[in-house]
């Protein structure tokens, strides 16, 4: 297919529809305050947030002031959503929504593209033929990995342990070399210079570096000009100061400052989740030189699994959004209702989660759930393995800092894996390459620390209900189906992978990572990181302060990528290096239309509210 025709038709489309109903506006999630704009975009995991337009009490009173600021910002999203979507369904112009948001920026891009790519393509028949073949080149396939040029050369050893002092035959120099070879470091220390946490290396190894870090930070602190970050060679250092704690991220992975900062923020949230803010403050008010490792004892694994998910590249953390299990609307409805029907009086939040994806949420009308809080819970349950490994039911005191950083809630967790609950005859264990991906958990959160038996009783009723109406089997089947394949949702689109974030719902969906980007083999781990690095770059470019970008198309030697932001969604996709902009845009359109069509399956809209 000749790309110029596509370009032409695009231009036709652009001239046809009326101008967009909304003036171009700044993207809602500002990067200001150095805060992680994305994860701050707090809303209900439901359309209740949309209805906050008419019911302003929707989520008031549950957020800190900074979150309050952010919570009001997504409102343009829903209102912008309403108009074009109506237009779309009534006109039968399924594309109008996207075209409208596309229009203001596409024209210059199209012109540019016709100057550059289009002309060349039109000229040469041989080029067209070559292109048709080369289009099959996958992203990152063409990368020549040479240890000297490739910054990801050592990535497959990134998560290997550094041998400790007791191991034989390893000199200090070797240990130091291994430590320095890590592409990503996270360090947490107190303002008095006491080490609290380091992702790599034991304290004997990093102690002196912690001292250096503390000296540097304190120097700038002393002159009332806090150090935010600095660069050494290809390594970026980003510093976040939270009360008595210093957080340092050291990255050779090419993330932006605000992305690294949001990662540090998440580590801070994990610490608050363990201690609560008043406790943390108290500890340091009374004894500034306290060793915080003791109070945090046992949570190193949670910090590390959080840190590693960032280093591997977490779309959820990048987008500050949650992923939901794709289910038919009626099925999800049935699950919500079963859940609500047996609700305990003591319940604050109820969640069903399968393989790290949200299946169902029930919550009180006046309280919503913040994605960063859910990220901590998911990390605890699905990444660190500490809860699952114990077996049985769990009763866990934890603070959800975005909900309320001053006190504990109590979380009941049970996994639906044992045979007693599932009378479904299908063999569940049969094909599970990675069984943690298939676990179905029920999470019941209460402010009452004595409510374990109430919630346990509720869990038994939920399990019974879900089993009776077949929902458990449906959930398991949906988990096994996995994420959507691009050739199934947009046949012919030459796109290798995409991320789609619904801004109003603060949820995202993505294409399956298989077969190229998923697996434990080193090359797949690296491929996945390349993909995520590209997404991080796209995301950073789109969210650069004052950039006002709507669409960004990048081509490099190893991949082509497209980012597209409207008030309704953020879309990022990646294709092979030879896929033309026009073809890519077409594919993107198809996927976005699919996401719009499937919105009520992909995302939890509404949820169960009581």
């Amino acid at each position, binding site marked *: 297919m000749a790309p110029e025709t596509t370009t032409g038709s695009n231009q036709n489309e652009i001239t046809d529809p009326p101008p967009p109903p909304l003036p171009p506006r700044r993207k809602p999630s500002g990067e200001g305050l150095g805060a992680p704009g994305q994860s701050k975009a707090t809303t209900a995991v439901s359309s209740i947030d949309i209805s906050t337009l008419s019911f302003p009490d929707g989520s008031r009173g549950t957020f800190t002031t900074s979150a309050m600021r952010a919570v009001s910002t997504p409102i343009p999203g829903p209102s912008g959503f309403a108009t074009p979507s109506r237009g779309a369904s009534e006109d039968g112009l399924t594309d109008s929504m996207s075209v409208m948001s596309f229009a203001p920026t596409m024209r210059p891009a199209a012109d540019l593209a016709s100057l550059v790519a289009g002309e060349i393509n039109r000229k040469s028949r041989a080029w067209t033929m070559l292109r048709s073949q080369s289009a099959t080149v996958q992203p990152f396939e063409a990368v020549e990995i040479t240890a000297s040029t490739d910054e990801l050369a050592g990535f497959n050893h990134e998560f290997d342990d550094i041998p400790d002092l007791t191991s034989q035959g390893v000199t200090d120099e070797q240990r130091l070399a291994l430590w320095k070879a890590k592409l990503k470091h996270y360090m947490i220390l107190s303002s008095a210079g006491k080490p609290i946490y380091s992702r790599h290396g034991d304290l004997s190894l990093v102690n002196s570096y912690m001292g250096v870090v503390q000296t540097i930070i304190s120097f700038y602190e002393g002159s009332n000009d806090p150090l935010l970050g600095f660069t050494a060679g290809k390594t970026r250092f980003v510093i976040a100061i939270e009360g008595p704690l210093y957080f340092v991220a050291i990255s050779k992975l090419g993330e932006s400052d605000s992305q690294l900062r949001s990662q540090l923020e998440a580590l801070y949230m994990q610490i608050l989740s363990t201690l609560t803010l008043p406790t943390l403050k108290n500890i340091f008010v009374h004894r500034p030189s306290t060793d915080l490792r003791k*109070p945090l004892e*046992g949570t190193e694994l949670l910090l590390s699994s959080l840190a590693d998910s960032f280093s591997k590249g977490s779309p959820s953390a990048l987008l500050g959004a949650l992923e939901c299990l794709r289910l038919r609307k009626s099925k999800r409805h049935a699950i919500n209702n079963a859940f609500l029907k047996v609700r305990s009086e003591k319940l604050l939040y109820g969640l069903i989660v399968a393989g790290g994806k949200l299946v169902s949420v029930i919550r009180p009308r006046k309280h919503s759930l913040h994605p960063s809080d859910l990220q901590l819970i998911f990390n605890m349950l699905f990444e660190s393995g500490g809860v699952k490994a114990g*077996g049985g039911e769990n009763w866990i005191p934890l603070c959800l800092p975005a909900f309320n950083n001053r006190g504990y809630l109590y979380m009941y967790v049970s996994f639906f894996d044992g045979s007693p609950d599932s009378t479904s005859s299908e063999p569940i264990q049969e094909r599970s390459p990675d069984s943690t991906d298939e676990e179905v958990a029920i999470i019941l959160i209460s402010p009452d620390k004595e409510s374990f038996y109430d919630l346990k009783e509720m869990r038994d009723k939920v399990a019974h209900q879900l089993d009776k109406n077949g929902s458990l089997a449906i959930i398991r089947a949906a988990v096994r189906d996995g994420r959507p394949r691009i050739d199934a949702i947009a046949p012919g689109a030459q796109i290798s992978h995409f991320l789609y974030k619904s801004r109003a719902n603060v949820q995202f969906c993505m294409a399956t990572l298989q077969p190229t980007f998923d697996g434990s083999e080193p090359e797949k781990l690296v491929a996945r990181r390349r993909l995520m690095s590209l997404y991080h770059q796209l995301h950073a470019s789109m969210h650069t302060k004052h950039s006002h970008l709507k669409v960004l198309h990048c081509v490099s030697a190893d991949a082509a990528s497209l980012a597209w932001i409207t008030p309704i969604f953020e879309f990022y996709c990646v294709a092979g290096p030879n896929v033309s902009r026009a073809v890519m845009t077409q594919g993107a359109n198809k996927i976005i239309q699919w996401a719009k069509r499937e919105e009520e399956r992909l995302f939890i809209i509404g949820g169960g509210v009581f």
Partner: protein
Amino acid sequence: MADSAGAPRPSSSVKLVLLGEAAVGKSSLVLRFVNNDFQENKEPTIGAAFLTQKCNLPQRTIKFEIWDTAGQERFASLAPMYYRNAQAALVVYDLTKPTSLIKAKHWVAELQRQASPGIVIALVGNKLDLTSDNAGTNGEGEAAGGDEDARKVSTEEAKTYAEEEGLLFFETSAKTGYNVTEVFTAIANAIPETSLKSARGPGAAGAAGRSEEQRVNLNGPRDPNAKEGCAC
């Protein structure tokens, strides 16, 4: 579980709590008892885990409702919630770590002061596989211990203390499984019949919100709860 086809053995629930310093092997003991399994480098428990396991005695079946608590200091304030109304407690220390016995003594004192008067307490020294006198354990344990004897707490010291305080005493290895079931069986045997007939322990903790049907009534006709125990 019940073998005699006719009259089921009386079954009763016993609330049991595990206490002890972090990383002494509380969860590993439970995992061995409940699943007969062992995991190296097990992650620390967060909060507490609730598990159940039946223990068959000649005369009756005991259904243990086990609270496996986290050992970290910051969870200590939650402990009363778990040992309140408990009929049994396992206070665990690490044979290779003297401070863990000190911590265990603190727990015993707290239990004697604040838990139910009739509570059966067992003092358990874990990680016997790391010591050289791991008689009864298999060779594997010996190999893991290496040539050195990592034992830092003598049997006599702990045993004397246990006798003074009227505790059951065991040295175990969750890794090899040595003595683990014995601990639980001994506890089951030590629970006085009367305490089983009195108001049910674990239920009492959350009694306010619990429905009547979940209570065990040994005197009356079989209640619905019993079908878990002895449906044959």
